[in-house]
């Protein structure tokens, strides 16, 4: 009888229905009742006391009740076995249950499992051996992770888990496959195969969700979050966290609380991170995932939050009792923040003097190297600083190239090296090798090229402009600027302005500009712009702008400076956006850019889609704008208006070589964005086409449009979540990263009625031979002269290079 109960319990597990405390309770829901009925029927069938028809009937009821098909597959599997094999399987499972009970403390020797496998491996019923292989793989995986088993045994872990998976699947079972899937994900991580790990965890999440096994779903999600973080897919982390939070509470799930805190810190949301951690100490955790590290992790995160909040003393106090290399790194960072660079170096050296988790100095992680480099820079040991930070940079670049292929998800500098470390490296190189070299280091790192190519490209860019090229690299606490004048002379400086400071000022300016749609641009707004100009613009650039009216310049905004509306900054009595042709230039990626657009080229114009019956308002301004584009050009554009503004027409335009003008809505819609292009976490950004069809930024990037120029006359076509080292993830970036040479875009919302004037002036200038930056300046000026508020004209921006 006991054996029967055990078998019934195992079957319930196999079907994903938890064994209820009172099996006869009338309160049981229909799913559990049908699962119990199926388990009972199967037990009787395997024991030879029940018939196949009753089993299939119970499977049918279960399938209809739950929508699941595994019970029918399980019934078919056991019906295919000889009666003796079914009975022998029952006996084996009874023995396995005892083994599983012994392994509940997760400490068992391998001999009994090996003996059981010898006995069950050739049995006709594959399920008992599958359970044994799965448990064996799980215990071995843990031993490898703990360091109590050789790392080489990861191969064995994988082989056993794969064998278990195959056997369960042969038996038509789903729920028992969750354990080997989890083990396979962990084994892949141990072997450094993040792609394989991600696929296994993803499958685990999917199957656990389908079978209602929340504990396994949690484990799969925690694994997937780790994989996403590893390859810099921050938006995917957000989406996975939201899924975990939909069925787990951070109060009772440390993994969730921890990952949410990390995400807040990654976004520099320091106050929120501190509040969050204080409210969510690790009181409940999965022993197999978190073990005793939970408390250390919690304290380390608290210390990190204090550090980012510029409270080095508090960080040091929290880190005092932190063990191992983690504690040493936190104490080093706190000492550095407190201005004690020597102490920081001592802590880092101490962390490498043996003990668990310590590494030789040459094997330090990227974060420890970055800390060491910053400490050396503080001490004026420039050469050593450069040597250490270059090593960190090379390591980050290797990790970057190991990341999953596909559209840009993260950058070596933004996610793994950190812009602060890159800023420190560039500052050290500027001191030793000059400002131009410093800028080349930044561009080479962010553009994934070599310093020589990046330096040449920067010089060439500066020479094609009247006022040169200015670069800002905004780190967590400091900003490095470099100004390369047209004659190649380069100067540099460092500002005590960090990411949060720059984002704050940028947001205030953008708010002030957008508010002009309903109110004036006040003197206090202008003073805001003057303040940003006075603190951010290099003095050599200001001198050049003051000396010479008009002209062009290139702004290489790296990090948070991407958000600054430079068009609004006033120098020499006029906003930059009205007086100067501004190129906002990203890191140069494609050496084979399409040729620049010329005045004779025939354009493709698409937009003003027919939107009847959709949630989107028709755009009469966009229609008029597109219909009249031909007035500006010698060749009539190829028009796709209204019902013809279809996905097929859009794709054809993207695959062609003609410059493209798009006038429509930009929208965010719910979606899980693995590739962070457009929108915010959990949102996908795209362009609206006929019938309300939305083509997303990710879809555009996948087509790799190599156009000479695209004009995106829609709201916030360059706006998107900011990813350090990569830039804002808007629709425009999908074109530029696909290979399009230049884009004329908007930084925020624009009015349908005001935009056409600017766009027609833009095209008149382009047809007259102006380059995109100058044409954009004329468009802004035309709107301003016509009395349009700054909300309309300052939104226009030219991205790319001359």
């Amino acid at each position, binding site marked *: 009888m006991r054996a029967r109960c055990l078998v019934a319990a195992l079957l319930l597990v196999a079907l994903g229905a938890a064994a209820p405390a009172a099996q006869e309770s009338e309160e049981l829901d229909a799913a559990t009742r049908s699962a119990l009925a199926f388990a009972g029927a199967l037990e009787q069938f395997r024991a030879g006391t029940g018939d196949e028809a009753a089993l299939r009937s119970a499977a049918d009821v279960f399938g209809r009740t739950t929508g699941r098909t595994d019970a029918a597959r399980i019934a078919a599997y056991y019906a295919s076995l000889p009666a003796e094999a079914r009975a022998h399987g029952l006996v084996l499972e009874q023995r396995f249950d005892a083994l599983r009970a012994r392994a509940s403390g997760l400490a068992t020797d391998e001999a009994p499992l090996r003996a059981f496998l010898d006995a069950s491996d050739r049995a006709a019923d594959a399920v008992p051996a599958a359970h044994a292989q799965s448990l064996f793989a799980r215990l071995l995986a843990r031993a490898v992770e703990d360091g109590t088993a050789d790392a080489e045994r990861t191969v064995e872990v994988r082989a056993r888990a794969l064998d278990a998976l195959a056997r369960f699947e042969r038996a038509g079972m789903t729920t028992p496959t969750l354990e080997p899937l989890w083990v396979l994900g962990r084994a892949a991580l141990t072997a450094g195969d993040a792609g394989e790990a991600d696929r296994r965890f993803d499958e685990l999440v999917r199957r656990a969700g389908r079978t209602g096994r929340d504990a396994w779903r949690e484990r799969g999600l925690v694994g997937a979050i780790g994989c996403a973080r590893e390859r810099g897919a921050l938006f995917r982390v957000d989406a996975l966290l939201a899924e975990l939070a939909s069925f787990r509470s951070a109060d009772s799930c440390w993994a969730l609380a921890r990952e949410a805190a990390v995400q807040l810190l990654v976004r520099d949301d320091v106050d929120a991170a501190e509040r969050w951690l204080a409210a969510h100490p690790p009181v409940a955790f999965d022993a197999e995932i978190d073990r005793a590290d939970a408390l250390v992790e919690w304290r380390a995160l608290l210390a990190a939050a204090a550090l980012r909040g510029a409270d080095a003393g508090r960080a040091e106090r929290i880190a005092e009792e932190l063990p191992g290399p983690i504690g040493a790194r936190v104490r080093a960072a706190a000492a550095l923040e407190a201005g004690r660079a020597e102490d920081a170096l001592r802590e880092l050296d101490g962390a490498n003097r043996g003990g668990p988790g310590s590494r030789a100095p040459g094997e330090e992680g990227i974060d420890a190297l970055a800390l060491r480099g910053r400490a050396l820079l503080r001490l004026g040991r420039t050469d050593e600083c450069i040597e250490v930070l270059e090593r960190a940079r090379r390591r980050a670049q290797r990790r970057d190239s190991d990341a999953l292929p596909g559209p840009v998800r993260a950058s070596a500098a933004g996610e793994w090296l950190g812009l602060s470390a890159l800023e420190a490296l560039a500052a050290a190189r500027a001191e030793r090798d000059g400002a131009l070299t410093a800028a080349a280091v930044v561009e080479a790192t962010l553009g994934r090229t070599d310093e020589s190519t990046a330096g040449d490209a920067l010089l060439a860019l500066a020479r094609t402009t009247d006022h040169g090229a200015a670069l800002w690299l905004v780190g967590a606490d400091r900003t490095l600027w470099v100004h390369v004048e047209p004659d190649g002379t380069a100067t540099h400086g460092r500002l005590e302005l960090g990411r949060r400071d720059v984002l704050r000022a940028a947001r205030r300016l953008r708010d002030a500009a957008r508010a002009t749609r309903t109110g004036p*641009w006040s003197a206090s707004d202008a003073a805001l712009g*003057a303040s940003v100009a006075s603190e951010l613009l290099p003095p050599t650039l200001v001198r050049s702008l003051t000396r010479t009216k008009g002209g062009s310049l290139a702004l290489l905004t790296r990090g948070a400076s991407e958000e600054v509306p430079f068009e609004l900054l006033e120098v020499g009595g006029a906003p930059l956006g009205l007086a100067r042709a501004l190129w906002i230039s990203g890191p140069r990626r494609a050496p084979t850019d399409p040729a620049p657009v010329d005045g004779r080229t025939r354009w493709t114009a698409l937009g003003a889609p027919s939107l009847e019956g959709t949630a989107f308002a028709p755009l009469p301004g966009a229609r008029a704008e597109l219909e009249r584009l031909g007035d500006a050009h010698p060749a009539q554009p190829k028009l796709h208006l209204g019902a013809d503004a279809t996905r097929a027409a859009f794709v054809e335009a993207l695959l062609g070589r003609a410059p493209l003008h798009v006038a429509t809505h930009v929208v965010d819609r719910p979606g899980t964005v693995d590739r962070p292009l457009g929108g915010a976490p959990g949102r996908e950004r795209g362009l609206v086409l006929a019938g309300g069809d939305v083509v997303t930024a990710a879809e555009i990037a996948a087509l790799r449009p190599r156009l000479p120029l695209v004009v995106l006359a829609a709201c916030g076509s360059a706006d998107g979540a900011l990813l350090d080292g990569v830039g804002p993830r808007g629709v425009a970036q999908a074109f530029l990263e696909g290979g399009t040479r230049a884009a004329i875009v908007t930084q925020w919302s624009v009015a349908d009625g005001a935009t056409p004037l600017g766009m027609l002036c833009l095209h008149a200038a382009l047809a007259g031979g102006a380059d995109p930056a100058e044409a954009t300046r004329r468009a802004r000026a035309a709107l301003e002269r016509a009395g349009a508020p700054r909300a309309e004209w300052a939104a226009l921006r030219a991205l790319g290079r001359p």
Partner: protein
Amino acid sequence: MTHEAAEGGGARPSVDLDDPRVVERILRYDDLDPAELAALERDPRARQLLDQLRSVDRFLHAGAPDAAPAPEELYAYGKGPGAAPSEGAHDADTRRWLAAHPEEAAWTESLEEQPPSPVFAEALAPGAPDPEVHQHRTENAASAGHERPRAIPFTPRPRRRTPAWLAWTPLAAAALLVAMALGGDGERGVMAGGLPDSPLLRSASEAPLLFPRGRVVAGDGALFAAAPVFEIAPQLRATDYRIEVRQLPIGASAFEPGRVVWTETSSAAVLIGPALEPGRYEWSARATVDGIDVDLGARSFSVVAAGSAATAAADGEVSDPTAVRADVRALHAAGFVTDARHRARALPPGEERDDYLAPPR
């Protein structure tokens, strides 16, 4: 009111609005001699267009940019970080204007605070503070004594008394502007005696932080600033919202974080804050969604001393719907959209009120 009814049903178009030369004349209406202007006004479509152009002109003038000193003059007058030396002739104008605009005066007073990190290499020649500026500051109880700022040169910008309508804009663009104006805009509701529309944007997205935004009328009583309502777009599955309001140090660096003046947590997406004195503010909000802390962003707004007409309109003592509509229109046109929204709540329930109070798109 239909267009024909406005003209008594008898007016017939006599002006060819497809002729670019006519369009350009209309756009330059303020340069026309009275006879030509009168001739144009006899045409209903031309008159409608002229009305709209005048309405835009009025809005631009009412918005103060032409009446106010140029921003760089104010900045120089206040000795802001990096400002060039101010000129005596401009200072006299600036001082008169500041006397009538206390908010801007407060700005210039505090501009003299030393910036945290000057970056410009060239310093101004040392010299004593301008006595007139000093006297004015003393009168306004501003602080004394400051280091000389470093220079960012400003050239006074010529002030524009009337918009230079399309001085060189291509005629195709001008014609388009006319087409757009005739095709309807956000002022239609106003002309019909209703509430103003928001402009049609090429987007269907909106940040979660709704109001306050832009400029808010300072004062007490029934004014919005006396009991500001912070509105957040409700977030799916959010259990609570946390708001933080910071007052920004007026005239100091744009990079300053500001001082926290109020924080509140509520399960509702609408929170009522404490009275706000004149100044520049920034509010940020967070939500707890499925137990996770989510940043909803930040938005700036200013509480400003407005003229008596705007203050009276925002004060909301009259509840007659016609008067309320007039107040809403006046506040909206003057850029006090938050106050206009606040005032519109006094309208009787209905489609018009719901449309106006709907979250902006």
